[in-house]
């Protein structure tokens, strides 16, 4: 059974220059204990999709669609209801650990706040729990460290504190938004390994948002590739890395610098730049950068769904797996959920 099921998620931002469609009809699900990677370039909409689900969009943002967590729709919840779930059943870790910690409070105070809020424990119990959690993320001398302020920790240690805070209430789902991007490679390796271990131990599901496919290979089960607000491909980690279907995924993989190969070949690069989300227009959004572009790409590409659940939004037919269904771009728009239709017609009127 899916733990989280997101369907037809739309996220828009009103800016002085016009409306930006950050996420356009995204569907995905996360099963219990599963680890899903959402991969894409800056502006692909990967962070905003998750922020919308968690009710954390900026003021000028609006979202619609469904996000069912354990059967309840997060998108319909009031702030109070969401607050019971956020930080407790769903935890988040952000990219920059320094800006997500309060510089004026000791680590103990910040961690205790989470525990007292969600579990109603007393202070001494909360402190013991915090120390225990810091030990679990392998912070040396946690009894001492818990009394310190964030600036007394190094970048890697701060990210460990963030992970410890996230795991305090034993969440069923951890959302990690570029958790290792701001860290050095050596520290990145430590953190990735730690997250993988903790997840296996507690059978926690995870959504890892990243632009770095290499990190994904290490700790994820399934990958969802986004481009210009849409899903372009999804599949198991083996499918994506060894048998990528969509030209964008193929290009992304080829442009990664590889440590395990000593060739002197030029690095493959995807030409051009990501499209402007302000005036996307129809057709395949990737067509201007695509090496396999055809005439039909001016039309919206179909979303091909194979029997084993992998999907590719492209006119090029998937090469393996039986194709179960093919939604054309047009019909996908018609299928959209009632709320979204209402909203869009309202704005038209």
């Amino acid at each position: 059974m899916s733990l989280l099921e997101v369907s037809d998620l739309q996220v828009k931002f009103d800016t002085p220059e016009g409306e930006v469609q950050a996420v356009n009809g995204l569907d995905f699900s996360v099963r219990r204990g599963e680890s899903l990677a959402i991969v894409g370039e800056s502006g692909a909409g990967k962070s905003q999709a998750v922020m919308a689900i968690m009710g954390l969009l900026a003021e000028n943002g609006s979202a619609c669609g469904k996000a069912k967590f354990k059967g309840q729709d997060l998108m319909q919840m009031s702030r109070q209801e969401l607050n019971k779930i956020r930080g407790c059943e769903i935890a988040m870790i952000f990219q920059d650990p320094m800006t997500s910690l309060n510089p004026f409070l000791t680590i103990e105070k910040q961690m205790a706040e989470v525990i007292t809020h969600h579990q109603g424990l007393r202070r001494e119990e909360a402190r013991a729990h915090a120390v225990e959690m810091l030990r679990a993320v392998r912070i040396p001398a946690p009894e001492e460290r818990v009394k310190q302020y964030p600036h007394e920790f190094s970048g890697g240690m701060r990210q460990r504190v963030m992970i410890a805070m996230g795991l305090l209430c034993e969440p069923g789902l951890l959302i990690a938004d570029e958790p290792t991007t701001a860290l050095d490679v050596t520290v990145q390796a430590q953190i990735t390994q730690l997250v993988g271990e903790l997840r296996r131990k507690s059978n926690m599901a995870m959504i890892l948002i990243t632009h770095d496919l290499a990190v994904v290979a290490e700790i994820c089960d399934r990958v969802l590739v986004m481009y210009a607000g849409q899903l372009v491909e999804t599949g198991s980690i083996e499918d994506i890395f060894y048998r990528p279907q969509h030209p964008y995924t193929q290009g992304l993989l080829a442009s990664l610098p590889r440590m395990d190969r000593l060739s002197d070949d030029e690095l493959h690069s995807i030409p051009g730049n990501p499209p402007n989300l302000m005036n996307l227009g129809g057709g395949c959004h990737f067509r201007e950068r695509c090496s396999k572009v055809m005439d039909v790409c001016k039309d919206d590409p179909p979303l091909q769904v194979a029997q084993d659940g992998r999907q590719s939004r492209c006119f090029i037919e998937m090469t393996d797996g039986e194709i179960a269904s093919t939604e054309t771009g047009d019909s996908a728009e018609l299928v959209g959920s009632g709320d979204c239709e209402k909203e869009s017609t309202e704005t038209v009127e």
Partner: protein
Amino acid sequence: MTAPVLRVQDLVVNFTSFTGGILQRKERVLRAVNGISFDLNAGETLGIVGETGSGKSTLARAILGLIKANRGRVMWEGEDLTLLGEEELRQKRKEIQIVFQDPVASLNPRMTAGDIISEPLWTFYPHMAPLQVEERTRGMMKVVGLLPNQINRYPHEFSGGQCQRIGIARSLVLNPRLVICDEPVSALDVSIQAQIINLLKDLQQKLGLALIFIAHDLSLVKHISNRIMVMYMGSAMELSQREALYRRPLHPYTHALIKSVPIPDPKLAARARQDSWLAGDMPSPYDPPKGCIFNTRCPYKVSRCQTDVPALRRMEQGDWVACHQAEDLDLSIHLDSASGIN
């Protein structure tokens, strides 16, 4: 062998800060660059790699004279740049240029692309005819892969990758002989990173530039460098030819850096995970460890490492390493895809 264009000898940069109140003022010295020496030949690329705080950017700035070195020499074609006056040094910057890390922050938002790229020309050749300046600017834009008709656009109208192209065009417009690239792609997306790396490589071959390419990990420098220097807390740990460094690193720190780069291959990643990573954090730079600076994190340390500072010395095959045990350690890397997957 040709004589090197740049010869850095025993370069030291200290930063001094003060702690305590007015009455109990204490001076603290942070040695950001600790006796670095290397040669750079014409048309060669030297990669400099190290974690945050290893002193690589400070080294770059000290070479350019943007930060004053406390000791040591920077010989540019036989002339010591550290001894030059401000105006003389400024003239040298026609030959030595820099590309910065953050492509957007390093461009003035109120200047057009054309203004930014042509500014060095106006500074160094104030009597150049405007038409000639524009022609050269447009030419430069074409060289770095921008459209010359974008000359009147402002930085915010370009993407990150395009902004970095403007930064590169600005550094090349004076026909320099050495360009120092300080993490030029770490702020860019993977697909764009590859574009910029290929552009730099291409330009280097076309223009015969010498390049110093600074990065925080070893994955990208591999594609662009002839030789690579690995820095840790201000000191050079290893300076090796590219192939040798990736096949058989001489220093345990280099080995750890190579092993920490994630491999985009699920099967290999699972294998690599079984190896142990480099533990712990970098020690405080105000209180560096005695003996080998890396000994607190080194899995191979012996008692000698805690007392004697290893000198950077030349090994048989011509590469340099600062490790007491370099002869005895075999740190070969066995992660080639070909052998990794059966």
